[in-house]
């Protein structure tokens, strides 16, 4: 049974990230011959001796002209054991927002470090973004190991620095390995030129990493997307009186017979049926898309949340949150925005900019405003309540967007609470990951 792993790549400019991705695709035989012909043709036209594998992922005209990655590119490859969705994120500082985007859905972030350059500020930024967004696993590939003559001491020193930064930033699972993206060492096959490294190759590692949170370790949460109520339009007469709440399980497991609470109303009821077009299920788990039938005809609509009765979240109109500011407009206190959380969108005002996150120290420093690519702490007041949870324990129900009410632009990625600070506190660990 093949499973799906979502990974995002990150790195600084010229760390060879596109080359690594090209190498992964090429060596896993996911590049087809007409794509390779095109890359070879363009490489030749530019006077290059070898095919420039970076051209496989840099798809936009401007990217090919400038030789850099501008926007997230999605790539797909598969081995016998697993299928991969790869979000290739740009390395430039001004494109940090793309790294945030890629990391938001990733099970694994693969971070490239140039063996000759050591741990750069940009590397710390990317580690901090991975921690902030609670990416379950981080793999740091120490690249261009061929250019330091496969020197073990250089690798060990860098690996230790990464380890220390990971502890600083509260990252639970960080692994390092030496690679040469250009030559292929330890990318798909284990290299004979790094005899001092006895771990898996990058692809082997990606095949083994646990793909997702085990839903049975989490609390059940179900944002209602649409009410299915076909009435006279039902394709079968037996469904004239059908009424169910359609959505994707955000976390946890629900079974027929389970007591649930509708939020924000607080009304309790029981799940009496779990439907899909393929038939009824006895239970459903994240991230299945299903429709739930309930015992009582309660007032429930899009934007509401069904939750397990035990430890149900509390609706609130005040949120303290960490946001990644993605717009080139400046965020000032008093700014009015729309807040989109699960399936609910409400008006909100930024009451206060508490501070900006200094990624070098991972501390909040005082700030009055936030600019493009800043990560900061804000206090929000909402026009009506949302059922939000701390992002550090609930990635799906702890996340939100801030949207410009005038032109609809996405202004910020938001995480309820202070995920970075909380991640560093022992005892506050996110859900367990099962293999």
């Amino acid at each position: 049974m093949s499973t799906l792993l979502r990974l995002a790549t990150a790195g600084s400019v010229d760390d060879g990230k596109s080359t690594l991705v090209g190498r992964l695709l090429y060596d896993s035989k996911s590049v087809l011959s007409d794509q390779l012909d095109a890359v070879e043709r363009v490489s030749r036209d530019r006077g290059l001796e070898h095919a420039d594998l970076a051209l496989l992922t840099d798809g936009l005209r401007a990217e090919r002209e400038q030789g850099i990655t501008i926007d997230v590119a999605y790539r797909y490859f598969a081995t016998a054991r697993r299928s991969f969705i790869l979000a290739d994120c740009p390395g430039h500082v001004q494109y940090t927002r793309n790294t945030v985007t890629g990391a938001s859905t990733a099970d694994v972030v693969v971070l490239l470090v140039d063996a000759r350059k050591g741990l750069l500020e940009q590397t710390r930024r990317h580690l901090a973004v991975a921690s902030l967004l609670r990416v379950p696993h981080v793999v740091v590939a120490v690249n261009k190991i061929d250019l330091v003559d496969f020197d073990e001491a250089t690798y060990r020193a860098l690996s230790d620095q990464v380890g220390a930064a990971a502890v600083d930033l509260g990252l639970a699972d960080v692994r390092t390995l030496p690679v040469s993206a250009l030559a292929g060492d330890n990318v798909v096959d284990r290299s004979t030129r790094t005899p001092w490294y006895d771990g898996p190759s990058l692809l082997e590692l990606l095949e083994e990493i646990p793909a997702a949170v085990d839903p049975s370790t989490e609390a059940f949460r179900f944002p209602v997307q649409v009410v299915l109520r076909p009435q006279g339009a039902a394709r079968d007469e037996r469904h004239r009186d059908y009424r169910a709440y359609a959505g994707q399980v955000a976390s946890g497991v629900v079974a027929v017979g389970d007591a649930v609470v509708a939020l924000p109303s607080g009304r309790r009821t029981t799940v009496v049926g779990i439907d899909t077009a393929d038939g009824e299920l006895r239970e459903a788990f994240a991230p299945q898309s299903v429709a739930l039938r309930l015992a009582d005809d309660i007032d429930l609509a899009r934007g509401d949340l069904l939750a397990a009765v035990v430890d149900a979240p509390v609706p609130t109109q005040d949120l303290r949150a960490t946001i990644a500011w993605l717009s080139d407009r400046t965020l000032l206190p008093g700014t009015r925005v729309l807040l989109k959380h699960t399936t609910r969108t409400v008006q909100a005002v930024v009451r206060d900019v508490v501070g900006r996150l200094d990624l070098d120290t991972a501390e909040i420093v005082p700030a009055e405003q936030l600019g493009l690519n800043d990560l900061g702490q804000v206090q929000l007041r909402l026009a009506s309540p949302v059922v939000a949870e701390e992002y550090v324990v609930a990635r799906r129900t702890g996340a939100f967007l801030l949207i410009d009410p005038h032109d609809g632009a996405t202004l910020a990625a938001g995480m309820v609470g202070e995920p970075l600070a909380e991640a560093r506190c022992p005892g506050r660990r996110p859900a367990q990951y099962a293999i």
Partner: protein
Amino acid sequence: MTTTDEHAGPAPRTHRLTQLQSLESEAIHILREVVAEFERPVLLFSGGKDSVVMLHLAVKAFWPGPVPFPVLHVDTGHNFPEVLAFRDATVERLGLRLQVARVQDYLDDGRLRERADGTRNQLQTVPLLDAIGRHDAVFGGGRRDEEKARAKERIYSLRDEFGQWDPRNQRPELWNLYNGRHRPGEHVRVFPLSNWTELDVWRYVAAERIALPSLYYAHDREVVARDGMWLAVGPHTQPREGEQVTTRRVRYRTVGDTSCTGAVESDATDVADVVREIAATRLTERGATRADDRASEAAMEDRKKEGYF
């Protein structure tokens, strides 16, 4: 590679979804989001495999109700008859409302002119934009694995009043929170199959036993070799001087305008054969079958900027 042991239906009790189940769940979530947040969605339906799979997912997303939006076909006038028949039978079977935007109408009244090479894929953009007019969301079956410009496109792709895509200025797309807000005149193209590959589509067709037009499976057809592809001989494609008409065992990997969609030689007569063939192929589907993508390194990006899907 296995084909039939991965059903996209009810999941096993292990609390883990297979790859196809993950993709199905994601697509159904997207379809439901759009219906909940837009007023007048429409689904582009050509009878091609991706649009057939997308429609199948729409049926599942809103079961036991009907598909809550109409379907739109941009008809270049260069159709494969079996695909048009399949389109009409599907619309009839599911009780859908079908809108057709005809390139021929635009040629007849002079709003468009035939291209020198006689192909019509490029001519679709204007009738498409006119037909989209009153719709605020348009589902397309585009996949990111198809082409390198598509690899950069969001699941929700905001288009201006001219349908233009601005790749340098796309909204970041975070978690599964899709931002569909747009100004009057703008609309959103939505791609529920963004994360599917050609092989995923075929494995899903197999698992769900989805019917497709017969030309996706091997059959004998009169063809000529042109631009390194096999083009079917028909009313819109006549052999040119020096071209030899031969009968070949072929099938189609993509379905588009007959004048620029090539067939591939194949003995794959059923879905299991096709899955095996796709798993082993060394050519991308567009590289193997589409003349319009060969114009330049950025042919698709340029067309998308002009409002193409």
